[in-house]
């Protein structure tokens, strides 16, 4: 965030206001951390509030897509790529990861290419979801024995988890870059008049209907707390459901395996609650989100330990990663927490 720091002066000059600072998590931070850090976090927070974090979110998109891609690569390897379509999420995640990282440095890529790849990723995720549903149907007993076949069949919600990075990529496309200060003044002023011509330097990813414009404008300016919270909630649900049955396969041998199961409904509720309540957005959501992130980190540690404890341990790394605890899955859970946190820092229009 060195970039952000150097922008602080510009922002002050341009008269960027910081409203409502002492509420929720921000307030908490202000009271407990030293000044220098507070200044940095304030800037980051402000960037997020105003939708000026295209670079960062592009990176986050790239990174989460990389995680998801690696996860699906070895999960499908376990399924032996027995159908050609099983390669698509691997290829697309790799592509999205590249485009995401590229988009962090190139606005055109972020606005033009990223939404296209993200959209295809989302589509592929839905196709994958259908195939996984079908996969369960093809198992002996199919959906007539739902619990068993859900547990033993292809992970039904896992493809949707990949759609989340697609979603993040989509959002990224509409955002402003961290240093886009002059621009956003202008657009903010023109907002509200329905036939306002979009700023000439603004690249519209697609159609220019009124609704789309309004939505796009909202995202550009960081007014999409509800959307992001909903995405966090859904992502938590998918990843929590995965944890539920994967840990069930292991008979909940360790008590700590319950923690993501307990956190999932809370994060889900907080995410959904945010749609109606500003209060939840500033209290419950950030707290649960931070817990989810920590939980993901702890989970990743335990999963790694589990892999090393397998027969052959580090001597057979590929095999043991393949069949050990899914090393990246907890990080995907943490990603839902990250989205929740992001949502709590965003603005909303009432």
């Amino acid at each position: 965030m060195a970039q952000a720091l150097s922008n602080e002066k510009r922002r002050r000059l341009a008269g960027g206001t910081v409203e409502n600072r002492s509420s929720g998590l921000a307030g908490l931070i202000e009271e407990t951390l030293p000044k220098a850090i507070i200044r940095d976090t304030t800037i980051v927070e402000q960037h997020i509030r105003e939708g000026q974090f295209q670079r960062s979110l592009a990176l986050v998109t790239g990174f989460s897509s990389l995680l998801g891609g690696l996860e699906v690569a070895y999960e499908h390897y376990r399924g032996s790529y027995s159908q050609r379509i099983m390669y698509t999420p691997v290829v697309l995640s790799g592509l999205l990861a590249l485009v995401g990282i590229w988009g962090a440095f190139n606005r055109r890529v972020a606005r033009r290419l990223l939404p296209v790849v993200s959209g295809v990723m989302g589509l592929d995720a839905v196709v994958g979801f259908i195939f996984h549903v079908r996969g369960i149907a093809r198992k002996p007993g199919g959906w007539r024995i739902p619990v068993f076949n859900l547990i033993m069949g292809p992970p039904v919600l896992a493809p949707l988890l990949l759609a989340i990075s697609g979603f993040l990529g989509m959002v990224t496309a509409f955002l402003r870059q961290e240093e886009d200060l002059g621009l956003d003044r202008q657009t903010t002023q023109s907002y509200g008049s329905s036939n306002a011509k979009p700023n000439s330097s603004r690249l519209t990813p697609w159609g220019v209907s009124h609704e789309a414009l309004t939505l796009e404008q909202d995202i550009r300016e960081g007014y999409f707390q509800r959307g992001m919270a909903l995405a966090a909630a859904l992502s938590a649900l998918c990843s929590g459901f995965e944890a539920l049955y994967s840990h069930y396969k292991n008979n909940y041998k360790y008590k700590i395996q319950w923690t993501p199961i307990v956190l999932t409904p809370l994060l889900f509720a907080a995410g959904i609650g945010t749609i109606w309540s500003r209060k939840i957005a500033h209290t419950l959501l950030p707290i649960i989100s931070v817990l989810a992130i920590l939980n993901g980190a702890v989970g990743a540690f335990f999963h790694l330990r589990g892999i090393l404890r397998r027969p052959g341990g580090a001597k057979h790394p590929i095999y043991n990663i393949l069949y050990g605890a899914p090393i990246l899955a907890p990080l995907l859970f943490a990603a839902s927490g990250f989205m929740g946190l992001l949502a709590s820092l965003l603005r909303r229009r009432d």
Partner: protein
Amino acid sequence: MKEPLLGSFKAKPEPGEHRLGPIQEIHVPMRKYSQDEEVDFCIVGVGSAGGVLLQRLARAGFRVVGLEAGPFWNTERDWVSDEAGSYKLYWNDLRITGGKNPLALGANNSGHGVGGGSVHWAGFTPRFHPSDFRVCSRDGVGVDWPISYWDLKPYYALLEKEMPVAGPAYYPWGDPHGYTYGPHPTAGVSNVLVNGCTRLGIGVSIGGPVAINSGSHADRPHCIYRGFCIQGCKVGAKQSTLVSHVPDAINYGAEIRDNCMVSRIEMGPQGRVTGVTYYDPDKKEARQKARVVIVCGYAIETPRLLLNSACPGWEQGLANSSGTVGKYLMAQAGNVVMGRFDELIRMYKGPPANSLTEEFYETDPKHDFARGFAVQTVGPLPIAFAKQMMVAKGAWGWGLRRVMMDYNHWAPLGVLGEILPWEDNTVTLAEEKDQFGLPVARVTFNLHDNDRKLINFATKKVEDILIAAGAREVVQEQRYAHLVGACRMGSDPKTSVVDGFGQSHDIPNLFVCDGSILPTQGSANPGLTIQALAARTADYLISERENILEGRPFSRISPPVRHDLSPEGTSGRGVPRLKGTALKVK
């Protein structure tokens, strides 16, 4: 019973429906040839090799009939996931055993019914090593093959895709290569092997190579790890030619006559065979005329049939001018070494074929014997385990009961050791007759010095592995596995029965293609090699189409590899593999 959520599973089977698993069905009515019609090929025994041949020849447009002594299984109806209930998968007819180290015959040896031995095999599918084809020139023992590893290699790769074989993306031994399907998860016994080997610094291949689906493959589901592989795999995850090749063969117009026991091969006037005589399901004698007869009856039944077909001019048996029909029978040393662990192992869980090491496969100058062995996971179910414990510990009565109560604490590992081909290990005809009045086979088996040294060393090594893995007590049972040989191939008609394509040296239109043609056996399970040889023989026969149809002599030229003859649904699946040649590691 409570109704399942969306109604009952499946209504009564439709008439004519033939089920090969929960989702695999054969629907087409089978083609029927009349007995007077001279078909192009008559295949005796639709087992591992027979199934592959039948499928390829049918796909290439030939008129093919397969005669199979056993039934054409409807797996949903006929098979049970039960050890005692699966005895009918084996060739249970009378056979006589003898020699200084007699083989246990009866069940657990060879198959009976469409799919043959591939129905009850565990599914281990390692390739032979390049050295296996040059045993005599490299190590001065046994005999060289008339073909090399490189002749067979494309067929290994092809069959690994067709079966398909699951295993690691990089397999380091022999000619290094990778597998089409990803490796399987491990269960208790594999964990013991992996732990033991890792602690002793021995390389180990985890989760394959096995011909068991690790992901679903067209209409064959993936493995569900219930461990009834040797009982036939009702799921259809484990390959048998019954589920992998036979449906395609029938689609392309092959006819299979099940419950038809071939009693003799008929010789015609010009030193050529004209067809076969068999007992139909009603035990009535019948005939089938054919331009070419291919015998695929496996290591005991093939020499028996050739010997039983003796006729004027061929008093020693068909294709036996060399006198080698029935000689050089081999079995692999299959000693099972069992370790008792304090923790639960649950050996019944998951496919018994899962992990192995070929670290000791090759001749090692440090050893006092030639050739080597592999160590593999095995998983006897309670009846087999009781027999093993009876031999290994002399357990009986109450003692056996106590041992059996401990079943879940034992981890068995199998030696798979190369026993060399010896002339005095034979299949001959006995005085006794079977239900059709045909003389049964007498099997004579003796161990030689090299074999005994190898077995001793191998069992000690496996004991070390088990102890390194934490076993408190180690016992072993001497066993043999995988019969091969007795109609061996070779370049010299004076010392072998068939050439490298399975064509008999004596009779141009009589072929043998099954485990019996192997000149040596390596320490790899033979099933993949047998099926790969069948695919190669099929390519040869297809490339000789004109000569076959016009009754001219064959060219004996290596055929081009036909990649277009794989069963439906073979291509477009599987993981990218590492092609090992450049990466060869020692």
